[in-house]
C-alpha cells in the first residue's frame, strides 16, 4: 500500500501547480461554510451574552435596536435624548442599580463613554493596571484600546475634533489614563470609559477658563457687582489637569445634562416588572426595553440572510464538485497510457483506481489541513473584527 502512496505523491509533486489548485479549491469549499457557521455562532454568543448581561435599557422613544446598540454595545449614532433628571427619577424608584451612559465622542475612532463609576462593578470589569478614575479628566481604557493606541497608565489621550471647521465647536480635550481594564471579551474592550462630568466636557457641555475675578481687563466685556461677562478671547483649556480642574464647570444644571441611555440592573424580577410598568405609566416620552428582544430579532434577521447564503454556497459547491469531477475524469483519461504501462509491468488489475484514490486522499487531506489552518487563524483573531463589521452592517 505504501507503494501506491509513493506513486501518488510523486505524481502530485510532478503536477505541483495543478495539485495546488485542486487543494485550494477543495479547501475553499470546506472553509466557507465552516467559517460562516463559526462567525455567526461567535457573533450570536457575543451579542447575546452582552444582551443577557444588560437586563434593561432606558432611553428616549424611538428605535429600540439603536438604543440598545448605543447603550450596551457603544455602536451607532444615537443622539443623547435622555437627561440626568431621568437618571435621578430612576434612582428614586430604588428598584435597581443604574449605569448612565453618555457617548461623548471618540479618540482615534474608539468611543469615549461617560458613565458612573458604578458601571465597572455592574459589568464586573477589573482594572488590570493602574486604578479607577478618581477625578474629572481621568479615563480607563479597554484592553483593546490600550494595545491599539499603545497607551499606558499616566499617558495622555486626546478626544477627536468632532467638527474641524466649526469654530464655535468643542475643543478636543486632553485626558489622563488612570488605568487599563483587564480583557473582558466585550464591547468594553474597545471603549474609553470616564466619568459623566468628563464626557460632558468632551462633548462641549462644559468647559474651563480662568478665574474671571482675576482675568486680564481686555477679556472683560462688562462687570457689575455680582456678574462678570467675558469676551471670546478668554482662553479655553483643552487639557484637564489637577491644576485647572476647579475652573471646569458645566452649562446648565446637573438635571439637564444629557445622557444617551441608562442601563438598568433591577434588584429582582419583581423590581424589573415594577420599573417597566412605572416607565410606561409615567415617562411617556421614554422607553425601557429588554436588550435581548431587539438583539434576538436582529440575530434572527442575520440568520435568515445566512440561510440564503448557505443555500447559495451549497449550489456553488455542487457546481464546483461537478467541475472537479470533470477535471478528474479528464485527468484519468489522459493518464490511460500510463495506467496501461503499469498493467504491462505487472501491476494489479485495480492499480489505476488505487492510484487515483491515493492521490485524491492525499489532496483532500492537504485541503483539510489548509481549511483547519484558516479557521484557526480567523477564530483566534478575526471574529472580533467580523463581529464589529457585522454590527456596522446592521446599523
Amino acid at each position: 500500500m505504501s507503494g501506491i502512496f509513493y506513486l501518488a505523491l510523486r505524481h502530485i509533486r510532478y503536477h505541483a501547480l495543478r495539485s495546488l489548485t485542486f487543494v485550494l479549491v477543495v479547501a475553499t469549499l470546506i472553509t466557507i461554510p465552516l467559517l460562516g457557521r463559526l462567525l455567526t455562532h461567535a457573533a450570536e454568543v457575543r451579542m447575546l451574552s452582552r444582551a443577557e448581561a444588560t437586563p434593561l435599557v432606558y432611553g428616549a422613544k424611538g428605535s429600540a435596536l439603536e438604543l440598545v446598540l448605543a447603550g450596551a454595545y457603544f455602536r451607532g449614532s444615537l443622539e443623547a435624548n435622555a437627561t440626568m433628571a431621568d437618571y435621578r427619577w430612576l434612582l428614586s424608584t430604588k428598584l435597581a442599580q443604574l449605569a448612565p451612559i453618555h457617548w461623548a465622542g471618540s479618540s482615534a475612532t474608539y468611543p469615549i463613554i461617560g458613565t458612573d463609576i458604578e458601571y465597572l462593578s455592574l459589568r464586573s470589569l477589573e482594572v488590570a493596571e493602574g486604578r479607577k478614575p478618581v477625578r474629572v479628566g481621568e479615563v480607563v481604557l479597554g484592553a483593546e484600546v490600550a494595545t491599539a493606541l499603545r497607551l499606558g497608565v499616566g499617558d495622555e489621550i486626546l478626544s477627536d475634533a468632532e467638527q474641524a471647521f466649526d469654530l464655535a465647536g468643542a475643543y478636543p480635550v486632553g485626558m489622563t489614563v488612570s488605568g487599563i481594564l483587564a480583557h473582558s471579551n466585550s464591547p468594553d474592550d474597545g471603549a474609553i470609559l470616564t466619568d459623566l462630568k468628563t464626557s460632558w466636557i468632551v462633548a462641549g457641555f462644559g468647559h474651563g477658563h480662568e478665574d474671571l475675578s482675576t482675568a486680564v481687563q481686555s477679556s472683560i466685556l462688562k462687570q457689575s457687582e455680582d456678574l462678570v461677562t467675558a469676551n471670546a478671547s478668554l482662553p479655553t483649556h483643552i487639557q484637564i489637569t489637577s491644576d485647572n480642574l476647579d475652573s471646569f464647570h458645566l452649562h446648565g444644571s446637573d438635571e439637564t445634562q444629557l445622557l444617551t441611555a441608562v442601563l438598568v440592573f433591577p434588584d429582582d424580577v419583581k423590581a424589573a416588572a415594577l420599573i417597566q410598568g412605572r416607565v410606561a405609566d409615567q415617562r411617556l416620552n421614554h422607553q425601557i426595553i429588554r436588550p435581548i428582544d431587539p438583539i434576538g430579532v436582529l440575530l434572527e434577521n442575520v440568520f435568515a440572510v445566512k440561510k440564503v447564503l448557505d443555500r447559495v454556497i451549497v449550489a456553488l459547491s455542487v457546481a464546483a464538485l461537478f467541475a472537479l469531477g470533470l477535471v478528474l475524469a479528464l485527468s484519468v483519461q489522459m493518464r490511460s497510457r500510463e495506467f496501461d504501462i503499469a498493467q504491462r509491468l505487472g501491476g494489479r488489475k485495480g492499480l489505476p483506481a488505487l492510484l487515483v484514490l491515493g492521490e485524491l486522499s492525499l489532496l483532500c487531506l492537504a485541503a483539510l489541513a489548509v481549511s483547519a489552518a484558516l479557521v484557526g487563524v480567523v477564530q483566534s483573531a478575526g471574529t472580533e473584527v467580523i463581529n464589529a463589521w457585522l454590527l456596522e452592517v446592521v446599523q
Partner: protein
Amino acid sequence: MRLLFPFLTSFILAGTAEQSLAADPLRRVFVANAPLAYFVDTLSGGSIEVVYPVPQGIDPAFWNPTPEDVLAAQGADIILLNGAGYSSWAKSAVLPRGRIVVSAAAFKDRLIADDGPKHQHGPEGAHSDGAGMAFTTWLDPELAMLQLEATAQALIEKWPDLAAGVDTARANIESEIAEMDTAFERFFARTEGRQIITSHPVYQYLERRYGQSPVPLHWEPDVMPDQREWSRFEALLESAKSPLLIWEGEPDPEIADNLDRMGVDWLVISPFANASNRTSLFSQIAAQVSAAE
C-alpha cells in the same frame, strides 16, 4: 478677657474617635465631617465602619483628598456629604452617584448664599462656578435635626436590621441637639445688645437662628493679623457697643494677649467640624457655650 478655659480645647483634641470593636468592615460609610461621623457612629452603635480620612488640623470643608481617599469613598456603601457647598472636592471627584446622600438636601431652600462673583457666557445666562453657600449648617439646631434625620433614613434604608438601634440612638442625639439649642439661647439672651464680631464668616446659620447680625472678620486663630487688620479692628471697636469676639478655634497666645490688652471680650465657639473626640459632640458644643457664662 478670657471666657473659655484651656481644658475645653484639650478636651476637644485629646480624645480619640469612638470606635466599636464590633464595627462591621463590610458596612462602610464615608463621611465629610466630624458631625456626620458622629451621627453614623452613634446611630449605628459602632456597628458600621466610618471612613473619615480628613487629618487633624485641616478644615474638612476645604480638604483635598488623595486618590486613595477617593478610592476609599468609591468603596463605601454610603457617601454621606454635608451639602451646601461643603466638600468642594466632591465636585470634581469621581463618586458613585447612587450611593451619595446629601444630608442637607431636604433644606436646600433654607441655605444661606455666600456671595461670590458669577459669570455669564452663551445663552444659558449667569451661573456660579460653585461654592457660594454658607455651610456650617449643623450649628442651627433645626437644620442639625434634619441632617440627623437624613442620616438615619439612609442607614435604615441600606441596612433595615439597624432600624431599632438607630431610632433609640437618634432620640439621644436629638436630646443633645436640644441641649445645644438651650445653651445658645441662653448665651445670646445674655449677650443681647452687645456687638458680636466673628473671626470668620462661619456662623451664618447660628446667626439666623438666634437673630444675630455679627460683623465677620477673616482672621485665623494661628496667624497674627497684620497692622492694617488691627487698625481696621480698632476702627470697628470705636463704633461697636460692648464688643464680643467669637473665635472658631483657640487663638495664639500673642493674639489673645493683644485682645486682652485692648479690653476685648472673646470666646471660642468651635463648630467641631473636625473634632477628633466625637463623643457626645453636640453636648461638647453646648458645653463650650455654657462654659462662657
